[in-house]
């Protein structure tokens, strides 16, 4: 890991020096122990701030989109011929590149506007899971030591196996290496356990419909509609989210439980063919809503119905942008 970080810093430094990119989005060490936070580096000398480890949680594609959108908005007042292009470098693991591919498919920016610094990934630490493992103690200091996490906590020294606090999405990750990149740092990471990716979904599908509804209702009851999930999600980039639209108002803004259900349902549904299972929404949810249970179902259906995995190939079209008469499943159509 150290080796990758060194190479990453060298590469970032070079890219900024050679003005190949205007900014690099990566991770730096967080202010809290055992965290890493996204950072924006515009000067070569800042490259040494960059870290790459199992504490890097967020999907940086979200920031790529934000930066480019902000830039484009700022350029709107400039005459077209005087507009400047901004190239954004991004440190990207597998799921990040999938999100980037989705952005590119959805024409959010050009391929030449983003420079992808690919990095291998063996998963990240589920912060909430770690906290549970140490019985809610506050971490005062901590470090990764091989496959173990060593901590000084309010409850004394603790050691936790990394594999025990691996985020759910990482455990069954199929794409833990970048799908596309302009430069690749380090050698590919060994595979995770993708064969089990839908085990959870299958188990849920096997439940009775009333059990499923009860679970959905219970999970949605937790939601406080803080919209953190939406803010974290790289696929949630609508200029005005439907919940904030009027004429018509799609979802009530009051306390009504069904409004929350409908909000969550539709936000989730917007992820058909667009969720890369990066886990960002899950990791930021303050209430611990089990969003992944539902997102993974959409992913599974999309694969089973249309043979599509979100953002898995640059050649793909958005799955809801086409129709395949010969291969799509038709059995949902009712014949009296």
């Amino acid at each position, binding site marked *: 890991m150290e080796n990758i970080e060194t190479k990453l810093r060298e590469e970032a430094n070079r890219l900024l020096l050679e003005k190949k990119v205007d900014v690099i989005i990566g991770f730096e060490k967080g202010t809290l122990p055992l965290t890493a936070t996204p950072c924006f580096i515009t000067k070569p000398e800042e490259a040494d701030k960059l870290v790459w480890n199992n504490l890097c949680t967020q999907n940086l594609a979200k920031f790529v989109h934000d930066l480019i959108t902000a830039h484009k908005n700022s350029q709107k007042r400039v005459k077209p011929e005087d507009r400047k292009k901004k190239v954004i470098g991004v440190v990207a693991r597998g799921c990040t590149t999938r999100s980037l591919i989705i952005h590119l498919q959805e024409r959010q920016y050009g391929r030449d506007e983003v420079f992808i610094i690919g990095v291998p990934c063996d998963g990240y630490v589920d912060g909430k899971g770690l906290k549970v493992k140490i019985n809610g103690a506050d971490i005062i200091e901590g470090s990764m030591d091989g496959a173990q996490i060593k901590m000084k906590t309010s409850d004394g020294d603790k050691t936790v196996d990394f594999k025990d606090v691996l985020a759910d999405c990482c455990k069954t990750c199929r794409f833990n290496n970048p799908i596309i990149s302009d430069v690749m740092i380090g050698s590919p990471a060994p595979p995770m356990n993708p064969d089990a990716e839908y085990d959870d979904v299958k188990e849920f599908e096997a439940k009775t419909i009333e059990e499923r509804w009860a679970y959905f209702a219970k999970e949605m009851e937790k939601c406080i509609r803080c919209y953190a999930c939406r803010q974290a999600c790289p696929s949630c980039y609508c200029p005005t989210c439907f919940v904030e639209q009027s004429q018509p108002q799609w979802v009530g803004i009051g306390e009504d439980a069904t409004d929350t259900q409908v909000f969550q349902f539709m936000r989730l549904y917007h992820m058909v063919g667009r969720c890369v299972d990066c886990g960002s929404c899950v990791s930021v949810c303050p209430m611990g809503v089990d969003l992944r249970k539902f997102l993974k179902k959409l992913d599974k259906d999309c694969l089973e119905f249309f043979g599509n995995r979100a953002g898995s190939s640059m050649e793909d079209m958005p799955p809801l*942008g086409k129709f395949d008469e010969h291969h799509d499943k038709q059995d949902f159509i009712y014949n009296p």
Partner: protein
Amino acid sequence: MIKDNEKVGAVMVVGAGIAGIQASLDLANSGMKVYLVENGISIGGVMAQLDKTFPTNDCSACILSPKLVEVGRHPNVNIMTRRTVETVEGEPGKFKVKLTSAPRYVNLDKCTGCGDCANVCPITVKAAFNGNLSERKAIYRHFPQAIPSGFAIDKLGTSPCKANCPTHISVQGYVALIADGKFKEALKLIKQDNPFPIVCGRVCNHPCETACMRGKVDEPIDIMHLKRFVADLDLNSDTRYLPEKKESNGKKVAVVGAGPSGLTCAYYLAIEGYEVVVYEALPVAGGWMAVGIPEYRLPKNVLNAEIKVIQDLGVKIYLNTRIGRDIPFDKLKSDFDAVFIGCGTMKSSKLNIPGEDMQGVIHGVDYLMQINLGKQLFLGDRVAVIGGGNVAMDAVRTAVRTGSKNVFILYRRTRAEMPASPEEIEEAIEEGIEMKFLVAPKRVVGKDGKVTGIECARMELGEPDASGRRRPIEIKGSEFIVECDAIVPAIGQEADLSFITKESGVSINKWNNVDYDKVTFATNVPGVFSGGDVVTGPQTVVKAVFSGKEAAKSIDRYLQGVDMKAGREKDWTKDLADKADVSDVPKVPREKYPNMKPEERRTSFQEVGIGFSEAQAIAEANRCLACGICSECYQCVDACIAKAIDHEMKAEEETIEVGAVIAAPGFEIFDASKRGEYGYGIYKNVVTALQFERILSASGPYFGHVQRISDGKEPKKIAFIQCVGSRDVSCGNSWCSSVCCMYATKEAIIGKEHAKGLEPTIFFMDIRAHGKDFDRFVNRAKDEYGIRYIRSMPSSIKELQQNNNLLIKYTNPDGSFTEEEFDMVVLSVGLMPPKEAKKLSASLGIELEEHGFCKTQLENPVKTSRPGVFVCGAFGGPKDIPETVMEASAAAACAEGMLAGKRGTMITPVENPEEKDMRGQSVRTGVFVCHCGINIGGVVNVPEVRDFAATLPTVVYTADNLFTCSQDTAVKMGEVIKEQNLTRVVVASCSPRTHEGLFQENCEKAGLNRYLFEMANIRDQDSWVHMHEPEKATQKAKDLLRMAVAKAQYLKPLKPGQLSVNHQALIIGGGLAGITAALSLADQGFASFVIEKEDRLGGNYNHLYKTLEGLDTRAHLKGLLEKVYNNPLITVVTGAHIEKIEGFIGNYKTTVKNKDGEKVFEHGVVLVAIGAYENEPKEYLYKQNAKVKTQRELEKLIYEKDPKLAAVKNVVMIQCVGSRNEERPYCSRYCCGEAIKNALELKAADPSRDITILYRDIRTFAFKEDYYKKAREANIKFISYEENRKPEVVASGDKVEVKVHDPILNETVNLSADAVVLSVGVVPNPENVAIGNMLKVPTNQDGFFLEAHVKLRPVDFATDGVFMCGMSHSPKYSDETVTQANAAVSRACLILTQDYIQAEGKTAYVNKERCSACGLCEINCPYSAISVNVAEGCAEVNAVLCKGCGVCTASCRMNAVDLNGFNNEEVLAQIYNINEG
């Protein structure tokens, strides 16, 4: 020559199938007035009967319906149904067309198409629209979506029974109603014309039966007794039928005589609201019916019951009141407003022989009267009755019943001449009465003043007299005496007119009858009318009834001050429905009418006839042949609340001026019964392909369920037999029908989709899949559907008796026979010239070609032999829908080209008032709820729905209407909109698909934006489908209305965008297609730029010398090029390359580069005519051996008369080189014809040449088949090969050798050849993709351009403003290219003729703030109407291209795109309002 300014800007299109419809739309949409003339009752032609269309299997109705609706609503198209063209006079540019129309009997302006009429119609006939596999009524429309949507009545003329009945009752009508079990209705119908059914059901002389057509088959219908049956039912029912009486009008009429004429007159006058008083001298009412007709024929009680109905209507009858004696005639005249004299002939005529005053002579009239008035009278044992009429019969039979033993008739002629009704005579003979014929009384013999006998003379028959009967002549010296006790002379009656005073002025003629007008029954004195026997001399009851009825009409008119005669004379002998061939009608014996036994009758006055039972009556009524089709029972008139039915409509003639005529009468299908060996019409399970098409159709006779005719079971094995009536000289049809191979394949596929277990087999000679994507379709049929194709023509079919299966015998390739059993056989019947082709060609003044189709010009297949008259569709030769549509557009273009200067001169522009300003207005909704007669109101509680509407938010006005679509309601709606200041209008009625436009126009006319209108469909989707659940239907109507009102709140006034149009065209490609298009555009007055890549124009056409049909193409091309270069409207750029195309419909900018530099052209449309290339073969030693050539190379040698050719003796041609293979799985269409053309030419030059053509299927479609036949006759050999067993070409010395497997010999043959000629086929232009990308138009999987719709929009692209023609579309012959080029011009003119393009109102729009420019809308839009503006970072809608489908809106997660007319707020408002509150 007609000068341009004298031309007429209108075109008549004859025939309203898809060809006629397309031509009409193209013409009307580019400013021409169109008269669309159709023989039938609705438009759509054969296409409307089809289930699906190949090769896409699109539903035919779905794609046709929008066209039907468009043409049906087009303000510039006048649809004229049931019309026939009689003559076309004048010159091109100004023709006078004479038309005749057959009446429809339904007023289309009033008919709402509800179908209530058909429900009550008792006449059922085979539905030709369904291939005679189902039934329809005499009032009908072919299919529910028919245009015009109104019904029509089929009449073959007046049925003879009705015509021959003196009262002209709709006899067929009440017979049909009886057959239908509608006895009350039958009685009512009878009573419309005759108030005496009880009488006439017993004692009528029934001339109806004499005329009955059934009499030609076996025996006439027993009409009289059927009448008695319904009359008796009424007689015995608790509530007798009493006609509705009009309100009293205060006028009084006197009737003299209570006989049939007087009472009839009284009856009809009473109904009309008159006060009628009848004076009768006798002590009983009924006149002769009461006192003349004996009890056993007409019992007094039933007669009185019949008369009671008349009294119940308010008619007063004063008995024992003799006018003249008790009341002076002149007093009647002064006391009453009118007088009717119907006193009859109650005096007997005298024999005027000696001894007539002796005792024992009693005249028939007196005799019967006395008996009937109750007197006991015994005449003695021997009674002679003299005469042969009904009175004589009555007298003689009465005498029998009063106890006389020996009673006989003396008649001076024979039985054949007896005027008495045959059954009377028959019954008399049954009762033992002797008839002495050819004897005439000379003298009464008596003793003591008492009769003892009568002296008679014998007679013989001479020449016919005035009555048509042979005159009896006395035989001299033949006198003899007949002994008898009494003599009853019954030879005639006369009137007693002594009461008519001289002063009255009523004229009496020499026969002592009142003088009268034969139509009005008026006498010479105003206000005095007369009828019945008193004016005619003794006649029948029905005749008297007729006169009374007619007199009543006259009296009514007289007293209302209306002309008494107008429109009343009618020649009933004309237009009789008596011409039908009845030879095939199976015999069914007449129901035996039950009588009392003769032995019982002799002693009794009890009624002889017992009357039919109900079952008998129905059975007898069912024998009716319905020879008039419509029975004129008038049930439809009663059922029609809109009052649309008018049985009095008459044939009319009209003359219309037009500038050009387009003939599009279509085709006839071959009558399969002419190929007797296939058993069509005999074997039940043998059907034609068109019948099978209907069987497959969801709206067909079996609702799409594939089933056999014999037992309704689903078939398993089904055989299609191709070429029935095509390629068959034995039935005179040498041509190929072009479409059968494909439709059979389609029907096999669809059949299999409907019935999974189906195993179709197609027996064929060649599979002719020569159209675009056809081979792929056939391959799918074989590979995916497993449809079996057998190259063999069955020689015979036998039906197996036990299961109605069919045994087909066919030959195998090796000559052996196979017999195979099938459950069903479908005959792929060919296309024939239309039945009326000969007459039509004479009317239009055009020539037919040898097969009977329209003769067309080789240079331009839509031109006929007469300038100004064009042809399109199958009339010019059998062809498929896309070719038909192309021809229709091409014909339109040619007609328009002639009349371009008159464009827009005859159309009716629509002018609307200024729209009211809506700013600051609150929403004020008006709701109109429609009853639709009883269609809605009969199920849904309309007033309740209306009151409910008043409770809904924003609703300020509500109303309910009987017919919201009627003209008066439209006016009312307009007034209400203004008065109530409505800002929204909601109509709850029928379907917006049919009526939205109409109501929107109402709004527009009242100054309300048309998009502020909304509909709730409470008929088609409510009252009609929930007829038995009125409460729930009412609830549903409320819900639908609430939803509509909720949506209406959010509607926005829309202003469709307008876009100016550049009137020039860019034509890419200067081949035959391009230059034809340029010239055609120039004819229309439009400039064009022809961009050609090569250095010269002409393209592939440069390489052609002659067509198969013999056109000198070099001369043709030369002529075209001269015209092109001399036309100032055409700019040609050669050696040019298109750099870029910017813009869209109406406004394009194209940059073209050639050696002279770059040029920019501005234009409104683009025609893509970039052609295709000849395939360059890699196989068969081409380019390796000089003996191997292409057809094109051979053609050059032939026509350039190359001397090298002389040595070429043995020629082998190989077809399908590079076509129909894996790489190019399509047919190149023209290679078969080209090969045969060259082969024939070689053979003609040197008959000793040995020519062999190796082929897979010979595809000489339509008339090209004749050349194939000619080639075989010229001994050109044809050997077929399979794709997987291709021939081999090997060099062998100075020759080449071709090895091929001969399937007939079943061995490989070696053909030594001096020349091997390859038919190399066509490859698409490799530039198609690049050009397509510039224009944003797609290519298909083979690389040819993809049209908007393969059937109905063959030259359009889905993107508006871009068109294609020629081989860039698909491989085709040169004449087809010409047609397509003209078609493309016609389509382009729809745009070029407009100053502005009007966009759809209901288009998509983008909320820029919400858009993230993800482009999903752009990918999804089928019309390239929305795209992302990258610089702006959001999507933009091109409102002109947008068709308002809304696909973009639902694909947008951001909800940034929305759709006018169906926006999110509007749809959600509906969703939110499914439930109350």
